[in-house]
Protein backbone atom coordinates (compact mmCIF):
# COMPACT_ATOMS: atom_id res chain seq x y z
CA UNK A 1 0.00 0.00 0.00
CA UNK A 2 1.45 3.41 -0.88
CA UNK A 3 2.36 5.71 1.98
CA UNK A 4 -0.01 8.18 3.56
CA UNK A 5 1.23 11.76 3.71
CA UNK A 6 0.65 13.44 7.07
CA UNK A 7 1.35 17.15 7.38
CA UNK A 8 1.85 18.59 10.85
CA UNK A 9 1.06 22.29 11.02
CA UNK A 10 -0.19 24.95 13.44
CA UNK A 11 -0.07 28.49 12.13
CA UNK A 12 1.53 29.78 15.32
CA UNK A 13 5.16 29.00 16.07
CA UNK A 14 6.40 27.23 19.13
CA UNK A 15 3.36 25.09 19.85
CA UNK A 16 5.24 21.83 19.30
CA UNK A 17 4.94 20.97 15.60
CA UNK A 18 8.47 19.69 15.32
CA UNK A 19 8.27 17.79 18.62
CA UNK A 20 5.00 16.24 17.47
CA UNK A 21 6.51 15.32 14.07
CA UNK A 22 9.54 13.67 15.67
CA UNK A 23 7.48 11.80 18.23
CA UNK A 24 4.80 10.58 15.85
CA UNK A 25 7.46 9.48 13.39
CA UNK A 26 9.31 7.65 16.18
CA UNK A 27 6.10 6.04 17.47
CA UNK A 28 5.16 4.83 13.98
CA UNK A 29 8.67 3.55 13.28
CA UNK A 30 8.76 1.81 16.68
CA UNK A 31 5.75 -0.18 15.46
CA UNK A 32 7.83 -1.25 12.48
CA UNK A 33 6.26 1.13 9.98
CA UNK A 34 8.48 2.57 7.25
CA UNK A 35 8.48 6.31 7.86
CA UNK A 36 10.05 9.27 6.06
CA UNK A 37 10.09 12.64 7.78
CA UNK A 38 10.47 15.75 5.64
CA UNK A 39 11.48 18.96 7.37
CA UNK A 40 9.75 21.65 5.29
CA UNK A 41 10.98 24.49 7.51
CA UNK A 42 13.67 25.60 5.09
CA UNK A 43 15.99 28.14 6.67
CA UNK A 44 15.03 27.22 10.24
CA UNK A 45 15.66 23.52 10.38
CA UNK A 46 15.04 21.75 13.69
CA UNK A 47 13.71 18.28 13.11
CA UNK A 48 17.22 16.85 12.69
CA UNK A 49 18.09 18.09 16.19
CA UNK A 50 15.05 16.57 17.88
CA UNK A 51 15.72 13.27 16.11
CA UNK A 52 19.42 13.47 17.03
CA UNK A 53 20.59 13.36 13.41
CA UNK A 54 22.22 16.76 12.92
CA UNK A 55 25.76 15.45 12.50
CA UNK A 56 24.79 13.09 9.68
CA UNK A 57 23.39 15.64 7.24
CA UNK A 58 25.07 15.69 3.84
CA UNK A 59 22.26 16.57 1.43
CA UNK A 60 18.99 18.33 2.15
CA UNK A 61 15.51 18.92 0.71
CA UNK A 62 16.64 21.73 -1.60
CA UNK A 63 19.44 19.54 -2.96
CA UNK A 64 16.84 16.90 -3.83
CA UNK A 65 14.46 19.38 -5.43
CA UNK A 66 17.23 21.06 -7.44
CA UNK A 67 18.60 17.71 -8.61
CA UNK A 68 22.01 17.81 -6.90
CA UNK A 69 21.39 14.40 -5.36
CA UNK A 70 19.00 11.49 -5.52
CA UNK A 71 16.23 11.24 -2.92
CA UNK A 72 17.91 8.17 -1.36
CA UNK A 73 21.08 10.14 -0.73
CA UNK A 74 19.27 12.78 1.28
CA UNK A 75 17.41 10.27 3.46
CA UNK A 76 19.15 9.91 6.80
CA UNK A 77 18.45 6.70 8.69
CA UNK A 78 17.69 7.02 12.40
CA UNK A 79 20.19 5.57 14.84
CA UNK A 80 17.82 3.35 16.85
CA UNK A 81 14.92 3.01 14.45
CA UNK A 82 16.02 1.44 11.18
CA UNK A 83 12.70 2.16 9.42
CA UNK A 84 12.77 5.89 10.18
CA UNK A 85 14.33 8.31 7.71
CA UNK A 86 14.71 12.08 7.68
CA UNK A 87 15.00 14.42 4.73
CA UNK A 88 16.37 17.53 6.44
CA UNK A 89 15.62 21.12 5.51
CA UNK A 90 18.27 23.37 4.00
CA UNK A 91 19.60 25.86 6.50
CA UNK A 92 21.09 28.38 4.08
CA UNK A 93 18.12 28.85 1.76
CA UNK A 94 14.55 30.06 2.17
CA UNK A 95 11.04 28.74 1.58
CA UNK A 96 10.86 29.95 -2.01
CA UNK A 97 13.55 27.41 -2.99
CA UNK A 98 10.80 24.77 -3.03
CA UNK A 99 7.36 24.92 -4.65
CA UNK A 100 4.16 23.03 -3.77
CA UNK A 101 4.52 21.02 -7.00
CA UNK A 102 8.09 20.04 -6.00
CA UNK A 103 6.68 18.64 -2.77
CA UNK A 104 3.92 16.76 -4.57
CA UNK A 105 6.51 15.24 -6.94
CA UNK A 106 8.85 14.27 -4.10
CA UNK A 107 6.07 12.64 -2.09
CA UNK A 108 4.75 10.67 -5.04
CA UNK A 109 8.28 9.30 -5.48
CA UNK A 110 8.45 8.34 -1.79
CA UNK A 111 4.98 6.82 -1.50
CA UNK A 112 6.06 3.49 -2.92
CA UNK A 113 8.02 1.46 -0.40
CA UNK A 114 7.00 3.45 2.68
CA UNK A 115 4.03 3.48 5.04
CA UNK A 116 4.05 7.06 6.23
CA UNK A 117 5.48 10.36 5.02
CA UNK A 118 5.42 13.02 7.73
CA UNK A 119 5.91 16.65 6.75
CA UNK A 120 6.88 19.12 9.46
CA UNK A 121 5.40 22.43 8.34
CA UNK A 122 6.95 25.79 9.21
CA UNK A 123 4.94 28.31 11.22
CA UNK A 124 3.01 30.90 9.26
CA UNK A 125 0.51 30.82 6.44
CA UNK A 126 2.77 31.61 3.50
CA UNK A 127 4.76 29.62 0.98
CA UNK A 128 6.27 27.21 3.51
CA UNK A 129 2.84 26.24 4.78
CA UNK A 130 1.52 25.75 1.25
CA UNK A 131 4.55 23.61 0.38
CA UNK A 132 3.89 21.41 3.39
CA UNK A 133 0.17 21.00 2.82
CA UNK A 134 0.18 20.52 -0.98
CA UNK A 135 0.99 16.77 -1.01
CA UNK A 136 -0.82 15.81 2.21
CA UNK A 137 -3.54 13.22 2.67
CA UNK A 138 -4.11 14.02 6.35
CA UNK A 139 -3.40 17.35 8.01
CA UNK A 140 -2.77 17.41 11.74
CA UNK A 141 -3.19 20.80 13.39
CA UNK A 142 -1.23 21.20 16.61
CA UNK A 143 -2.38 23.78 19.12
CA UNK A 144 -1.80 24.72 22.73
CA UNK A 145 -4.64 25.51 25.11
CA UNK A 146 -3.99 29.26 24.77
CA UNK A 147 -6.16 31.85 23.03
CA UNK A 148 -3.45 32.97 20.60
CA UNK A 149 -2.56 29.43 19.53
CA UNK A 150 -6.23 28.50 19.16
CA UNK A 151 -6.90 31.63 17.11
CA UNK A 152 -4.09 30.76 14.72
CA UNK A 153 -5.23 27.15 14.57
CA UNK A 154 -8.68 28.40 13.56
CA UNK A 155 -7.14 30.50 10.79
CA UNK A 156 -5.01 27.62 9.54
CA UNK A 157 -8.01 25.26 9.56
CA UNK A 158 -9.83 27.77 7.35
CA UNK A 159 -6.87 27.82 4.95
CA UNK A 160 -6.65 24.03 4.92
CA UNK A 161 -10.35 23.86 4.07
CA UNK A 162 -9.79 26.43 1.32
CA UNK A 163 -7.02 24.19 -0.11
CA UNK A 164 -9.62 21.39 -0.06
CA UNK A 165 -7.44 19.33 2.27
CA UNK A 166 -9.89 19.43 5.13
CA UNK A 167 -11.19 18.65 7.56
CA UNK A 168 -7.92 18.41 9.47
CA UNK A 169 -7.43 16.52 12.74
CA UNK A 170 -6.51 18.28 15.97
CA UNK A 171 -3.83 17.62 18.55
CA UNK A 172 -3.79 19.65 21.76
CA UNK A 173 -0.26 19.91 23.08
CA UNK A 174 1.04 20.95 26.51
CA UNK A 175 -2.20 20.66 28.40
CA UNK A 176 -1.81 21.21 32.12
CA UNK A 177 -4.76 19.42 33.78
CA UNK A 178 -4.14 21.18 37.09
CA UNK A 179 -4.39 24.62 35.46
CA UNK A 180 -7.54 23.56 33.61
CA UNK A 181 -9.03 22.44 36.91
CA UNK A 182 -8.27 25.83 38.42
CA UNK A 183 -9.90 27.52 35.41
CA UNK A 184 -6.60 29.15 34.38
CA UNK A 185 -6.22 27.30 31.09
CA UNK A 186 -8.58 26.62 28.21
CA UNK A 187 -10.02 23.15 28.55
CA UNK A 188 -10.03 20.70 25.64
CA UNK A 189 -13.78 21.30 25.52
CA UNK A 190 -13.30 25.07 25.07
CA UNK A 191 -10.80 24.45 22.27
CA UNK A 192 -13.01 21.91 20.52
CA UNK A 193 -16.09 24.07 20.81
CA UNK A 194 -14.35 26.78 18.82
CA UNK A 195 -12.38 24.73 16.32
CA UNK A 196 -15.05 22.06 15.78
CA UNK A 197 -12.75 19.46 14.22
CA UNK A 198 -11.92 15.90 15.14
CA UNK A 199 -9.59 15.53 18.15
CA UNK A 200 -6.88 12.93 17.65
CA UNK A 201 -5.14 13.35 20.98
CA UNK A 202 -4.08 15.45 23.94
CA UNK A 203 -0.46 15.57 25.09
CA UNK A 204 0.02 16.68 28.70
CA UNK A 205 2.65 19.24 29.61
CA UNK A 206 5.75 17.44 30.73
CA UNK A 207 9.28 18.74 31.43
CA UNK A 208 10.67 15.47 30.24
CA UNK A 209 9.56 16.23 26.64
CA UNK A 210 11.99 19.17 26.51
CA UNK A 211 14.79 17.13 28.06
CA UNK A 212 14.26 14.31 25.59
CA UNK A 213 14.20 16.74 22.66
CA UNK A 214 17.47 18.30 23.78
CA UNK A 215 19.04 14.88 23.92
CA UNK A 216 17.74 13.99 20.46
CA UNK A 217 15.76 11.01 21.73
CA UNK A 218 12.01 11.50 21.19
CA UNK A 219 9.96 10.97 24.32
CA UNK A 220 7.68 8.58 22.44
CA UNK A 221 10.49 6.01 22.76
CA UNK A 222 10.29 6.14 26.56
CA UNK A 223 7.78 3.43 27.51
CA UNK A 224 7.10 4.88 30.97
CA UNK A 225 6.48 8.54 30.08
CA UNK A 226 2.89 9.72 29.86
CA UNK A 227 3.50 12.34 27.19
CA UNK A 228 5.26 9.59 25.24
CA UNK A 229 2.23 7.36 25.75
CA UNK A 230 0.02 10.17 24.44
CA UNK A 231 2.12 10.39 21.26
CA UNK A 232 2.03 6.61 20.83
CA UNK A 233 -1.76 6.69 21.21
CA UNK A 234 -2.03 9.43 18.56
CA UNK A 235 0.11 7.35 16.20
CA UNK A 236 -2.27 4.41 16.76
CA UNK A 237 -5.36 6.56 16.16
CA UNK A 238 -3.87 8.01 12.95
CA UNK A 239 -3.62 4.44 11.69
CA UNK A 240 -7.31 3.98 12.36
CA UNK A 241 -7.08 2.01 15.62
CA UNK A 242 -9.54 3.08 18.29
CA UNK A 243 -7.57 3.98 21.42
CA UNK A 244 -9.41 5.37 24.45
CA UNK A 245 -8.32 8.81 25.60
CA UNK A 246 -6.07 8.89 28.66
CA UNK A 247 -7.64 10.21 31.82
CA UNK A 248 -5.20 13.04 32.43
CA UNK A 249 -6.90 14.16 35.62
CA UNK A 250 -6.72 10.83 37.35
CA UNK A 251 -3.11 10.30 36.34
CA UNK A 252 -2.27 13.62 37.89
CA UNK A 253 -4.10 12.71 41.07
CA UNK A 254 -2.35 9.38 41.21
CA UNK A 255 1.08 10.96 40.74
CA UNK A 256 0.23 13.52 43.36
CA UNK A 257 -0.74 10.79 45.79
CA UNK A 258 2.39 8.83 44.91
CA UNK A 259 4.70 11.75 45.46
CA UNK A 260 2.95 12.53 48.74
CA UNK A 261 3.55 8.95 49.82
CA UNK A 262 7.19 9.15 48.82
CA UNK A 263 8.14 12.48 50.24
CA UNK A 264 5.15 14.67 50.88
CA UNK A 265 6.22 17.39 48.43
CA UNK A 266 3.27 17.18 46.06
Amino acid at each position, binding site marked *: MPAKVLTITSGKGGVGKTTASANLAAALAAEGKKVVCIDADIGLRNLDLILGLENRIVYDLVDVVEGRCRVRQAMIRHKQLPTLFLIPAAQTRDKTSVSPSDMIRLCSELREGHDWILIDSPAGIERGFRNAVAPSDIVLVVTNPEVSAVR*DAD*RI*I*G*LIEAEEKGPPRLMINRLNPEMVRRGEMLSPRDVLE*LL*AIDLVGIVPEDEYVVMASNRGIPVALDPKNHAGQAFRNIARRLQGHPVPFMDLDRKDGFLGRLSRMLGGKA
Partner: protein
Amino acid sequence: MAPDIRIKGIRDGLLITVGDGEWPRAQTALFDQMQQRASFIHGARITLDVGNHILHAAELGKLRDTLSEMGVNLQIVLSNSPITETTAQSLGLGTRLSKPHPERIARPLDTNVREGEPGILVHRTLRSGYKLEYPGHVTIVGDVNPGAEVVASGSILVWGRLRGVVHAGAEGNEEAFVCALALSPTQLRIAGQIAIPPQHTGTPKPEIAFLRDGQVIAEPWDVKR
Protein backbone atom coordinates in the same frame (compact mmCIF):
# COMPACT_ATOMS: atom_id res chain seq x y z
CA MET B 1 -81.51 47.68 -27.07
CA ALA B 2 -80.38 44.11 -26.45
CA PRO B 3 -79.74 43.01 -22.90
CA ASP B 4 -76.18 43.23 -21.73
CA ILE B 5 -74.13 40.00 -21.88
CA ARG B 6 -70.82 39.79 -20.07
CA ILE B 7 -68.38 36.94 -20.16
CA LYS B 8 -65.47 36.66 -17.79
CA GLY B 9 -63.13 33.99 -16.59
CA ILE B 10 -63.47 32.74 -13.04
CA ARG B 11 -61.69 30.06 -11.05
CA ASP B 12 -64.05 27.32 -12.22
CA GLY B 13 -64.47 28.33 -15.82
CA LEU B 14 -66.52 31.14 -17.33
CA LEU B 15 -69.07 33.38 -15.67
CA ILE B 16 -71.68 34.72 -18.06
CA THR B 17 -73.90 37.48 -16.77
CA VAL B 18 -77.17 38.15 -18.52
CA GLY B 19 -78.59 41.64 -18.15
CA ASP B 20 -82.24 42.44 -17.48
CA GLY B 21 -84.89 42.58 -20.19
CA GLU B 22 -87.27 40.18 -21.88
CA TRP B 23 -85.94 36.64 -21.66
CA PRO B 24 -86.31 35.68 -25.35
CA ARG B 25 -84.32 38.69 -26.40
CA ALA B 26 -81.82 38.11 -23.65
CA GLN B 27 -81.46 34.51 -24.71
CA THR B 28 -80.91 35.48 -28.33
CA ALA B 29 -78.28 38.01 -27.28
CA LEU B 30 -76.61 35.36 -25.16
CA PHE B 31 -76.45 32.86 -27.99
CA ASP B 32 -75.17 35.54 -30.37
CA GLN B 33 -72.36 36.44 -28.01
CA MET B 34 -71.45 32.84 -27.50
CA GLN B 35 -71.51 32.09 -31.22
CA GLN B 36 -69.10 34.95 -31.79
CA ARG B 37 -66.68 33.51 -29.27
CA ALA B 38 -67.34 29.88 -30.04
CA SER B 39 -63.68 28.99 -30.31
CA PHE B 40 -62.85 30.79 -27.06
CA ILE B 41 -65.58 29.22 -24.96
CA HIS B 42 -65.58 25.76 -26.47
CA GLY B 43 -65.38 23.08 -23.75
CA ALA B 44 -65.74 25.60 -20.93
CA ARG B 45 -67.61 25.06 -17.71
CA ILE B 46 -70.25 27.73 -17.57
CA THR B 47 -71.72 29.57 -14.62
CA LEU B 48 -74.69 31.59 -15.79
CA ASP B 49 -75.85 34.56 -13.76
CA VAL B 50 -79.37 35.30 -14.94
CA GLY B 51 -80.00 38.10 -12.47
CA ASN B 52 -83.66 38.93 -12.13
CA HIS B 53 -84.93 36.71 -14.95
CA ILE B 54 -87.48 34.17 -13.86
CA LEU B 55 -86.96 30.93 -15.70
CA HIS B 56 -89.07 27.81 -15.67
CA ALA B 57 -88.05 24.29 -16.45
CA ALA B 58 -88.86 24.50 -20.17
CA GLU B 59 -86.78 27.62 -20.70
CA LEU B 60 -83.88 26.51 -18.61
CA GLY B 61 -83.90 23.02 -20.13
CA LYS B 62 -83.82 24.49 -23.63
CA LEU B 63 -81.01 26.79 -22.63
CA ARG B 64 -78.95 23.96 -21.23
CA ASP B 65 -79.49 21.85 -24.35
CA THR B 66 -78.55 24.68 -26.67
CA LEU B 67 -75.40 25.42 -24.70
CA SER B 68 -74.52 21.77 -24.75
CA GLU B 69 -74.90 21.78 -28.57
CA MET B 70 -72.48 24.72 -28.64
CA GLY B 71 -69.91 22.60 -26.88
CA VAL B 72 -70.07 24.18 -23.45
CA ASN B 73 -71.20 22.70 -20.20
CA LEU B 74 -73.70 24.61 -18.05
CA GLN B 75 -73.01 23.79 -14.46
CA ILE B 76 -74.33 26.55 -12.22
CA VAL B 77 -77.16 29.02 -12.53
CA LEU B 78 -77.07 32.05 -10.28
CA SER B 79 -80.29 33.93 -9.83
CA ASN B 80 -81.99 36.50 -7.64
CA SER B 81 -85.25 34.61 -8.06
CA PRO B 82 -86.11 31.65 -5.84
CA ILE B 83 -88.25 30.24 -8.64
CA THR B 84 -85.31 30.10 -11.03
CA GLU B 85 -83.11 28.56 -8.35
CA THR B 86 -85.68 25.84 -7.70
CA THR B 87 -85.91 25.17 -11.42
CA ALA B 88 -82.15 24.95 -11.71
CA GLN B 89 -81.96 22.57 -8.79
CA SER B 90 -84.67 20.37 -10.29
CA LEU B 91 -82.57 20.12 -13.46
CA GLY B 92 -79.56 19.10 -11.41
CA LEU B 93 -77.70 22.38 -11.79
CA GLY B 94 -75.86 24.13 -9.05
CA THR B 95 -77.08 27.46 -7.74
CA ARG B 96 -74.05 28.66 -5.78
CA LEU B 97 -70.47 29.29 -6.74
CA SER B 98 -68.39 26.68 -5.00
CA LYS B 99 -66.55 28.22 -2.07
CA PRO B 100 -62.81 27.98 -2.30
CA HIS B 101 -61.28 25.60 0.23
CA PRO B 102 -59.91 27.67 3.07
CA GLU B 103 -56.63 25.74 3.33
CA ARG B 104 -55.88 26.47 -0.27
CA ILE B 105 -55.69 30.18 0.32
CA ALA B 106 -52.15 31.36 1.01
CA ARG B 107 -52.32 33.01 4.41
CA PRO B 108 -50.27 36.17 4.32
CA LEU B 109 -47.52 35.99 6.97
CA ASP B 110 -47.85 38.44 9.75
CA THR B 111 -44.54 40.14 9.15
CA ASN B 112 -42.99 42.84 7.08
CA VAL B 113 -42.10 40.84 4.05
CA ARG B 114 -39.82 42.93 1.95
CA GLU B 115 -39.44 41.48 -1.45
CA GLY B 116 -36.61 42.12 -3.82
CA GLU B 117 -33.92 42.77 -1.21
CA PRO B 118 -30.76 40.79 -1.87
CA GLY B 119 -29.64 38.20 0.65
CA ILE B 120 -27.33 35.23 0.87
CA LEU B 121 -27.26 32.04 2.86
CA VAL B 122 -23.79 31.00 3.98
CA HIS B 123 -23.78 27.40 5.07
CA ARG B 124 -20.44 27.17 6.86
CA THR B 125 -18.47 28.34 9.85
CA LEU B 126 -16.43 31.48 9.24
CA ARG B 127 -13.01 30.98 10.77
CA SER B 128 -10.38 33.50 11.85
CA GLY B 129 -9.07 35.56 8.95
CA TYR B 130 -12.19 35.15 6.82
CA LYS B 131 -13.96 38.33 5.78
CA LEU B 132 -17.40 38.22 4.23
CA GLU B 133 -18.74 41.37 2.60
CA TYR B 134 -22.15 41.44 0.99
CA PRO B 135 -24.45 44.22 -0.28
CA GLY B 136 -27.61 42.84 1.34
CA HIS B 137 -28.79 40.59 4.15
CA VAL B 138 -26.56 37.74 5.32
CA THR B 139 -27.70 34.53 6.97
CA ILE B 140 -24.98 32.26 8.29
CA VAL B 141 -25.72 28.68 9.26
CA GLY B 142 -22.64 28.01 11.35
CA ASP B 143 -20.43 29.96 13.73
CA VAL B 144 -18.60 33.23 13.21
CA ASN B 145 -15.35 32.62 15.06
CA PRO B 146 -13.18 35.28 16.66
CA GLY B 147 -10.97 36.87 14.01
CA ALA B 148 -13.63 36.48 11.30
CA GLU B 149 -15.54 39.52 10.01
CA VAL B 150 -18.93 39.96 8.37
CA VAL B 151 -19.88 43.24 6.72
CA ALA B 152 -23.37 43.57 5.23
CA SER B 153 -25.41 46.51 4.00
CA GLY B 154 -28.47 44.74 5.41
CA SER B 155 -29.06 42.63 8.50
CA ILE B 156 -26.97 39.72 9.74
CA LEU B 157 -28.47 36.55 11.16
CA VAL B 158 -26.20 33.88 12.59
CA TRP B 159 -27.66 30.46 13.27
CA GLY B 160 -24.76 29.61 15.55
CA ARG B 161 -22.28 31.36 17.83
CA LEU B 162 -21.27 34.85 16.83
CA ARG B 163 -17.86 35.69 18.28
CA GLY B 164 -16.17 37.65 15.51
CA VAL B 165 -16.66 41.20 14.25
CA VAL B 166 -19.94 42.10 12.52
CA HIS B 167 -21.12 45.25 10.79
CA ALA B 168 -24.77 45.38 9.76
CA GLY B 169 -26.21 48.28 7.78
CA ALA B 170 -22.69 49.08 6.66
CA GLU B 171 -23.94 51.62 4.12
CA GLY B 172 -25.86 53.53 6.76
CA ASN B 173 -29.07 51.51 7.13
CA GLU B 174 -30.11 52.12 10.75
CA GLU B 175 -32.96 49.60 10.48
CA ALA B 176 -30.45 46.77 10.14
CA PHE B 177 -30.10 44.31 12.99
CA VAL B 178 -27.84 41.49 14.07
CA CYS B 179 -29.07 38.32 15.70
CA ALA B 180 -27.40 35.08 16.72
CA LEU B 181 -28.10 31.98 18.77
CA ALA B 182 -25.21 33.09 20.97
CA LEU B 183 -24.47 36.77 20.52
CA SER B 184 -21.00 37.48 21.89
CA PRO B 185 -19.18 39.36 19.14
CA THR B 186 -15.72 40.85 19.54
CA GLN B 187 -17.22 44.05 18.18
CA LEU B 188 -20.64 44.84 16.78
CA ARG B 189 -21.44 47.72 14.46
CA ILE B 190 -24.78 48.84 13.12
CA ALA B 191 -24.70 51.66 10.56
CA GLY B 192 -22.34 54.21 12.15
CA GLN B 193 -22.53 52.94 15.74
CA ILE B 194 -19.89 50.74 17.30
CA ALA B 195 -20.50 48.58 20.36
CA ILE B 196 -18.18 46.37 22.35
CA PRO B 197 -20.45 43.94 24.13
CA PRO B 198 -19.67 42.91 27.70
CA GLN B 199 -18.12 39.51 28.23
CA HIS B 200 -20.85 36.93 28.39
CA THR B 201 -21.08 34.66 31.37
CA GLY B 202 -23.32 31.66 31.79
CA THR B 203 -25.31 29.92 29.11
CA PRO B 204 -25.63 32.06 26.00
CA LYS B 205 -29.14 32.80 24.83
CA PRO B 206 -30.34 33.90 21.41
CA GLU B 207 -30.18 37.67 21.23
CA ILE B 208 -30.90 40.43 18.75
CA ALA B 209 -29.04 43.71 18.51
CA PHE B 210 -30.46 46.81 16.89
CA LEU B 211 -30.34 50.59 17.04
CA ARG B 212 -32.68 52.53 19.31
CA ASP B 213 -32.19 56.28 19.64
CA GLY B 214 -28.71 55.96 18.19
CA GLN B 215 -27.68 53.32 20.74
CA VAL B 216 -26.94 49.70 20.06
CA ILE B 217 -29.35 47.62 22.17
CA ALA B 218 -29.21 43.85 22.63
CA GLU B 219 -32.34 42.02 23.73
CA PRO B 220 -33.37 38.40 24.03
CA TRP B 221 -34.30 37.19 20.58
CA ASP B 222 -37.96 36.50 21.16
CA VAL B 223 -40.32 35.47 18.40
CA LYS B 224 -43.21 37.23 20.12
CA ARG B 225 -41.47 40.56 19.77
